[in-house]
């Protein structure tokens, strides 16, 4: 599921345009499994699964597998439609240097939600 992020982001020229100033590595955690996702000029480069000894990233998004699975449904259930809905319910934790995330919030929301397109297939 998480690998589909690269496929859908890199196929979306408009999303890449919107993220053209993004150059960062962020961490996405599903339960205790970490993934480092590298973004350059709006494109997803590598998605590297952990475990990591000294992971180097700007910000991290952490949630349970059950939460991500609901979030990634094509039409998520009430309360699972947006990262801020998850944050408010304490189902997701966002930590680290949030600047790249907040400065490109609409872009990252679409990047993180990209697996919904895979679910919809």
């Amino acid at each position, binding site marked *: 599921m998480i690998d589909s992020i690269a496929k859908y982001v890199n196929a979306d020229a408009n999303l890449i345009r919107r993220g053209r100033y993004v150059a960062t590595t962020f961490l996405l955690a599903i339960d205790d499994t970490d993934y480092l996702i590298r973004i350059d000029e709006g494109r997803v480069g590598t998605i590297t699964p952990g475990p990591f000894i000294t992971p180097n990233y700007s910000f991290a998004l952490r949630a349970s597998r059950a939460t991500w699975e609901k979030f990634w449904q094509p*039409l*998520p259930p*009430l*309360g699972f*439609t*947006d*990262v*801020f*809905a998850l*944050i*408010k*319910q304490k189902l997701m934790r966002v930590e680290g240097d*949030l*600047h790249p995330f*907040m*400065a490109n*919030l*609409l872009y990252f*929301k679409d990047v993180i939600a990209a697996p919904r397109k895979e679910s919809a297939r």
Partner: protein
Amino acid sequence: MSPRFEPVTGRYLNTTLLGKPHRLYVEEAGKGIPLLCLHTAGSDTRQYRGLMNDARVTDNFRVIAFDMPWHGKSSPPPGWQEEEYKLTSRDYVRMIVDVADALALDKPVGMGCSIGGRIVLHLAHEHPERFRALIGLESAAHTAPYYDLSWLNRPDVHGGMVSAGVVSGLVAPTAPLAERWETLWHYMQSGPGVFKGDLHFYNIDGDIRDRVDQIDIKRCPLYLLTGEYDYSCTSEATLDIARRTGAPATIMKGLGHFPMSEDPAKFVGYLLPVLEKIRASA
């Protein structure tokens, strides 16, 4: 071919609010019972474009909306550069009552969304005699902040983009794309620090949990409408007000935090029965 104007008139009102001169932008459409509409934090009167263009509403109601000072086409007052904008309950209530007076409205219906849905609770509590009825859209007695508000106004983050970013998830995922992005555009156009200043009321100063029980809906009828996808003003928060005041509440399917703007056609279906009740009791 004649120009295709909408039946909406926009004008500027010169008035004094909180001791300062203001040039307020006011829009209206329709005739009948005045319906004074209050936009959400960091947005403007364009949120009510659907209502103003719907004859089912405007045949019997004079729909009026004003851009709050600092918002839309209403500038901040002279000297604004010397202060940080922070909306308070006291100023917000005073502003609405004074604008209604400046417009010479006789017992209008007041309708507000989000911060507007909160302030109608304050109006119901403090000024029930001034309104024919009050309609709260996305009303909650209090909403605690769920992210660091300082992100909304700092030089290294685009304030419009981050404001639109934090509210985008509050639009129902089923909303029509054009209306969703129109709604977000209003947020992108907001002046620096204005959304954050409104949230001072929404998240801190506007807490009315301790007075909800004192609202008397016999003195001024109160109606509550909340979108099911709203995780900021939740259905539970609205139903709690309904339980404590006896006000009728409807949870609107397929709508989020900006019902009148994100999907006007769907929202009007929920609003019309409320307007009919108000008209029947006139």
